[in-house]
C-alpha cells in the first residue's frame, strides 16, 4: 500500500526520529511511504488559539499537498483530531464550495499512526523488540478525541521483551494543551507535577505516548528535576528490533 506521511510541523522540526521510525515500521510491513515535501502545518496551533482565519489557508494547503495521496498517516493524534473534528466546519465557514469538496475528500484519508496499523492494516504485532521498563500515558486527543488509546496499548503489549507498567491516572491530561502551557503556566505546571508523580511511581525507565507534544511537556519536567526518566514516542518503540533502536 502507498502511504503518504504527514509528519506534522513539530515532529519534523523537533522529533525527526519519530518520523524515521514511522517510515521504518511501515516499510518493514511491506508498504511504500512517500513524503510530500511541500507539507508544513495543519493549522492546529492557530485554530486552537483562536486564530481560525489564519488556520484556513493552512488547511487549504493540506488538501492541495496531499491531493494525490491514497492514505495519509500522521504520528500525532492532536493534529488528526483537529483535521477530523474541525476541518469540515472550518471549510463550511469559508463558504468556498471547492474547498469544502477538497476537505471532504481529504479528511477520510487521514489516519493516526496506530489507527493505521491496527484499524486499516490489521496489524497488532509489528515485530518490535524493546527490552525496557515502560509506562504509557494516553494523550487526551487520542483517548477522547480519536478513542484510540486502546489500539496503542494493544500494539505495545505485542512488543517483545518490553515490561509495560500501568500508569496511575493514565487518562488525566498532562497539562500541555498547546498554548495553554504558555498562557496558564502555573496551572499547567501543577498538572505536570501530578503526571510526573504518577510516572515516577511506576519506576519505569521510559514514559511513552502517541503524541510528542505531551511527551515534550512531560520530559521537560522530568529532565528539569533530573529524574533520569525519559520519554519515547510509541513509533520509536515499535520501530525497535533486536538489531537496534532507531
Amino acid at each position, binding site marked *: 500500500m502507498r502511504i503518504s506521511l504527514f509528519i506534522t510541523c513539530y515532529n519534523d522540526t523537533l522529533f525527526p526520529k519519530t518520523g524515521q521510525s514511522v517510515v521504518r515500521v511501515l516499510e518493514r510491513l511491506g508498504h511504500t511511504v512517500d513524503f510530500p515535501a511541500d507539507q508544513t502545518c495543519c493549522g492546529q496551533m492557530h485554530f486552537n488559539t483562536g486564530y481560525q482565519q489564519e488556520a484556513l489557508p493552512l488547511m487549504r494547503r493540506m488538501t492541495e499537498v496531499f491531493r494525490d495521496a491514497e492514505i495519509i498517516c500522521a504520528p500525532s493524534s492532536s493534529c488528526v483530531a483537529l483535521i477530523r473534528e474541525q476541518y469540515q466546519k472550518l471549510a463550511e465557514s469559508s463558504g468556498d464550495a471547492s474547498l469544502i469538496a477538497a476537505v471532504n475528500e481529504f479528511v477520510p484519508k487521514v489516519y493516526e499512526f496506530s489507527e493505521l496499523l491496527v484499524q486499516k492494516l490489521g496489524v497488532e504485532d509489528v515485530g518490535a523488540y524493546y527490552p525496557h521498563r515502560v509506562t504509557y500515558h494516553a494523550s487526551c486527543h487520542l483517548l477522547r478525541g480519536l478513542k484510540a488509546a486502546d489500539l496503542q496499548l494493544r500494539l505495545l503489549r505485542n512488543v517483545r521483551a518490553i515490561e509495560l507498567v500501568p500508569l496511575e491516572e493514565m487518562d488525566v*491530561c498532562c497539562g500541555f*494543551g498547546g498554548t495553554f502551557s504558555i498562557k496558564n503556566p502555573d496551572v499547567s505546571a501543577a*498538572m505536570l507535577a501530578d503526571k510526573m508523580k504518577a510516572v515516577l511511581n511506576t519506576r519505569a525507565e521510559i514514559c511513552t505516548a502517541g503524541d510528542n507534544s505531551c511527551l515534550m511537556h512531560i520530559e521537560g519536567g522530568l*529532565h*528539569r528535576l533530573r529524574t533520569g526518566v525519559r520519554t519515547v514516542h510509541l513509533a520509536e518503540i515499535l520501530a525497535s528490533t533486536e538489531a537496534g533502536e532507531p
Partner: protein
Amino acid sequence: MTVRVADAASAAKFPILANGLVEDSQIRQNVRHATNVIQNKRARVVAEQHDWQQLRESASKIKEHTLQYLDRYLEEFESACIRAGGQVHWAIDADEANRIIVGLMQNAIEKNGWTREVIKVKTMTSDEIGLNHALEAAGIQPHETDLADMIIQLGEDKPSHIVVPALHKNRTQVREIFARKMGLPELGEKPQDLTDAARNYLRDKFEKVKIGFSGANFLIAETGGVCVVESEGNGRMCLTLPEMLITVAGIEKVIPRQQDLEVFLQLLPRSATGERMNPYNTLWTGVHEGDGPREFHIVLLDNGRSSILADKESRQTLHCIRCGACLNACPVYSRTGGHAYGSIYAGPIGAILTPQLQSMKHSQSLPFASSLCGACYEVCPVRINIPDVLLHLRGKVVERQQNSLSRGVSIEAVAMKAVAFIYAHPRLYALGQKFARVAQKVLVRKGWIHWLPGMLGGWTAVRDVKQLPDEPFRDWWAKREAAKRDEPMEKSYGG
C-alpha cells in the same frame, strides 16, 4: 439592559487568580479530595446504567428541540402556570429581576406585617443576579438554608462549585465558621455535630419566616410546574412552609413535558452527586388551597441567555442542567478550585457560560483556561461539546481583540500571523528551521535549553526543552531519497 453575572466583569484574569490558588496547599488538598470522591461515586452509578449513552442523547435532543422553539414553550409555561394560580414575571437582566423580587417581598411584608427575612433554597441564579446584596440593601435578611450555601454565607465567602459551593472548605474550617457565627465555642467537628448545629440554627428560621425563595431545575411547559431537586430536605422546607414563594429561573430551564423529567431525573443526580436519585424531588404547580404557599411567583430571567441562543455554534451552552460533573472531571478546576474563574459559574461550563452571558465583553481569559483535554465533554449528561465551544469562543476573543483599535496590536497576534505566513511557504519554513538551529546555540547547555525569553518563559520556569536536532525530518528524507536515486546507478557502474 445591563447583563451582570455577579461581579465577573471586574474579576482579575484567570491566570492571575489561578496563580495564588495553585499554591494554596489547603485549597489544593480540599478540592482534590472532594472532586475525587464525587467523581468516583459518579463513575460507579453511571457504569450501572446501561442506557447511559442513550439517555445523554435523549437529553441533548430534548434540549436542542426546546431551544429551537423556546419562545413557544415559554409562553406555554406562562399560561399553564397562570392557570394553576401562579404569577409569572419576565426579567431582561439582573437588575430587573432584583427589582421585581425585592418589590414583591417589600409589598408582602408591609401588607402582612411579616418579619423582614427570606429563607432560600440553593440557587445559582440568585448568585448570578446578586440577589442577596439587593435584599440586604432593601433591609431584608436572606437566609441560605442549603448547608453549603449557609457555610458560604456565614463565612462571607464565595461559592466555588455549582453543586457543592463550599467544596473548597474542609470539615475543620466549617466547624470554625459555625462555632464563630452561631456562638458555639464547644462545637465538635464530626459530621453529626455540624449538621445538628445547622439544623438547630435553621429550624427557627423555617418556623418564623413567611417568604421562601428558590431557583428551579426544570420548568414544565405542559403543566406550568416547577421542579427542584436537592439532598438535604431544607429546600423542601422553604418550598412548602412559607406563605409566599418566589422562584427565579433562567429561560433555558423549560422542558416541554412532565414526561421529559424521566430522562433528566436519571441523568442529573448521577452526574451531580453520584446518587441514583435525589433524596428530595419537589414538584409543584401553581398554588393549592390548604397546601403549601398561598402565593407563588416565578421570575423568568434572560440576563444574556437570548444572545447565547442566537449563536448557532455555542447555543448548546444552554443545554446545561448545572450538574457540575464537568467541574469534578476537569484537571484545571481540580488544581485551582472555583475562585480562579472569577465567576459564580466555575469550571469548564463556567469558562463558556460566563463570557457568553456577558456578550464576550468580559471574562475573556476564561475560554483559554482549558487544556482542551475533553474530560468535560465525556461526562456531560446533556452532551455539551465544551471543547468545541471553547474553541469557538477563543476565535471570538481574538476577533474582538483584532477589531479593537484601542488595544493596539498584540505580540501574540503578530507572532501568530508571522508563523502562519511561514507555514504557508515551505521554503521559508525550512529556512526557519535552519535559523532556529543556529539561534538556539546561545541558549543550549549540554543538549538542553533551561531558559526561554518573554511569553515562553512560563514554559522554562519549570520545564527544560531539548535542543533542536541537527537535522529535521525533511532533510533526512531528502538525503535518503537522493541516496536511493544514486544507489541503482552505482550498482550499474559496479556491474
